[in-house]
């Protein structure tokens, strides 16, 4: 039997839905004692600016996970959207690199894309990027909900198709010379707070509102918990699933804007290795891979933990291989703790 203090610890720390936040903060405080500059303003800005693009992706993934799906195509959507947006907005293209492009002479020229040099380049470019992301999500959603194809297969094929299309569209070239106002979205900051924070804040507030205060939000959980019961209860399950995938694509568009802007280029290989970070952060945050469970602030906590982990391992000056091993072990430990917590909750130990 646990003592009273032990029970309190388990109830308010281990079993709390904010457990990952507590863990992150504890991790940060302890490491700050040993790692120089860990708590410096500049480093906190670094962690913060690294977090928000990943957060956008995890929020999108969360919607798909809640309805019991999985979106493996997010990073390829990001790359595809990145090159589409950059092709529209760029103000200069090197003929030596792009003259073999199928769009050369029609949409692309030495003076850049169709919006190159225009004041509308950034707003129109951003809107198009978001729409393209959502449209790819729509294709995924329709394939899963209407055609009853397994989400794993659908999004795996999307991942390959749109990843390949991004490379084909650019012939592997990165597209530079993006408008300064677009680059500022990823690089600018107010004091120590990056602009990307405000974008993430809007995204988080909007999604939190949808999940907590709308019928649609309840439908997402309902479909994820039991799709048959939901259908019998009158929930338009197909529409709900499609909307979840559209939102995932939209969020990939948001992340693409943030990553492309901070790298100052449209990149056909953008985020190729990011998928595991996205799913890892979602799972660490407590979002269930089996559907029906997930909250915006859990996604935030998962991303916070991930960003802190990556940052701290860099600050420890470990080799790349060690970083990967340590990262893997910590994710495994987090998953094990999550399983233990769930068992304790089910058994009603406290």
């Amino acid at each position, binding site marked *: 039997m646990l003592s009273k203090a032990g029970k309190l610890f388990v109830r*308010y720390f281990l079993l709390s839905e*904010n457990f990952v*936040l*507590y863990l992150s*903060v504890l991790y*940060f*405080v302890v490491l*700050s*004692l040993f790692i*120089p*500059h*860990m*708590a*410096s*303003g*500049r*480093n906190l800005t*670094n962690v913060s600016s*690294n977090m928000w693009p990943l957060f956008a992706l995890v929020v999108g993934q969360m919607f798909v996970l809640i309805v019991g799906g999985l979106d493996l195509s997010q990073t390829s959507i990001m790359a595809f959207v990145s090159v589409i947006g950059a092709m529209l907005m760029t103000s200069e293209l090197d003929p*030596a*690199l792009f003259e073999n492009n199928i769009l050369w002479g029609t949409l692309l020229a030495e003076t850049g894309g169709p919006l190159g040099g225009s004041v509308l380049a950034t707003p129109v470019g951003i809107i198009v990027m978001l729409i393209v992301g959502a449209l790819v999500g729509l294709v995924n959603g329709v394939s899963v909900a209407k055609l009853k194809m397994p989400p794993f297969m659908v999004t795996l094929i999307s991942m390959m198709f749109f990843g390949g299309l991004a490379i084909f569209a650019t*012939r*592997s*070239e*990165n597209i*530079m010379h993006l408008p300064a106002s677009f680059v500022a979205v990823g690089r600018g900051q107010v004091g120590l707070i990056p602009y990307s924070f405000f974008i993430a804040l809007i995204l988080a507030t909007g999604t939190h509102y949808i999940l907590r205060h709308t019928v649609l939000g309840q439908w997402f959980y309902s479909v994820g918990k039991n799709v048959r019961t939901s259908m019998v209860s009158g929930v338009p399950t197909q529409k709900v699933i499609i909307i979840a995938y559209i939102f995932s694509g939209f969020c990939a568009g948001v992340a693409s804007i943030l*990553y492309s802007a*901070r*790298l*100052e*280029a449209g*990149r056909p290989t*953008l*985020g*190729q*290795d*990011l998928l595991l970070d996205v799913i890892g952060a979602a799972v660490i945050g407590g979002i269930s891979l089996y559907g029906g469970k997930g909250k915006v602030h859990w996604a935030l906590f998962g991303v916070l933990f991930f960003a802190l982990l*990556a*940052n701290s391992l*860099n*600050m420890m*000056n470990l*080799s*790349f291989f060690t970083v990967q091993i340590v990262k893997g072990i910590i994710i495994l430990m987090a998953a094990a703790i999550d399983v233990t917590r769930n068992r304790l909750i089910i058994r009603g130990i406290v």
Partner: protein
Amino acid sequence: MRLIYIFLTVTIVAVMFIAGCREQGDSDDGTLTVCFAFQDLETEFWVASHKAITETLMAKGIRVIERNGNEDANRQLEQVRDAITQGVDGIVLIPQDGESAVTIVGEANRAGVPIAVFNRPPSNRSNPALVVVSDNESISEKAMAYMAEEARKVGGKIKPLIVVGDLGDKNAVARRQGFYNILKANPDIFLPHIEVPSKWDSTTALANLEAAIQSNPDVGLIFTSSDFLYPQIKAVLESFGKWKPRGEEGHVILGGVDGDTTAYRWMQDGYVDATGVQDLYYESEVLLGALIEAIEAGEATPEKWMYDLGFALTQANMAERASDMWGCRLLEEAKVKND
């Protein structure tokens, strides 16, 4: 929620306290610290460059913080930012590509940290940096010129093939240009050429080369934009019965750029005719020398482009120049160790 607010407040206060203590307690022992951010260690050239750079820095008593971006430009940017936060005195960068080099150099410029870019140059000069780069076009030309001489000896017209690298990398573009220059200069001996993309990826190169040779079994000359692709070329030529040394009927004239151990070994065995050699020891020496000079002079954004003219190791000059090739030196070092 109240619990969260209390918790966060306590944490923020604790962090501010820690940060304050840290600011006061930071000590500087006077040792220079340099961040070495590289994109990966996939090929022998990058492994040898990594060794040359780290050993040169450490020999000068400099502390080295290594960061492997694992071919992810965003990760490399984050790593460099973290290193800047750690207060490094300088940065040596092997970027993923020329475009990300521009962004990362800009990041270092804004932080006032001198940065040196090794071998893979930024795609434009908008942000000042120390850059060392091989004259890839000229090195390719030198190797191809020898291969053209060999082709002329064969007689008739030969179908040439080039395995190109990632054309987002200026080095790959320049190497391809060197190949073209020699084709243009010798229209009497070459048929229209075939271009095989590799994207600096051995699997892609293997698949594309296999398809190209299948469609064009009469290819008589292959130029690879990097020596690390020789094993894939060998595999494909062997499967078509075309992997033959010089002097044998059906020998495919073979050459490339880099100067690695495989190229050296197969030159000794007579399979490879020529290879353009980058002098990575020279490159690391001049680049790091310039960086240390800039750090000591307190220059935050030094700018200087340095060129490695390189040379071509051919079957004709192997006896005299092999020891200048880094691949040969690595092989000799390994032999000494094994003995």
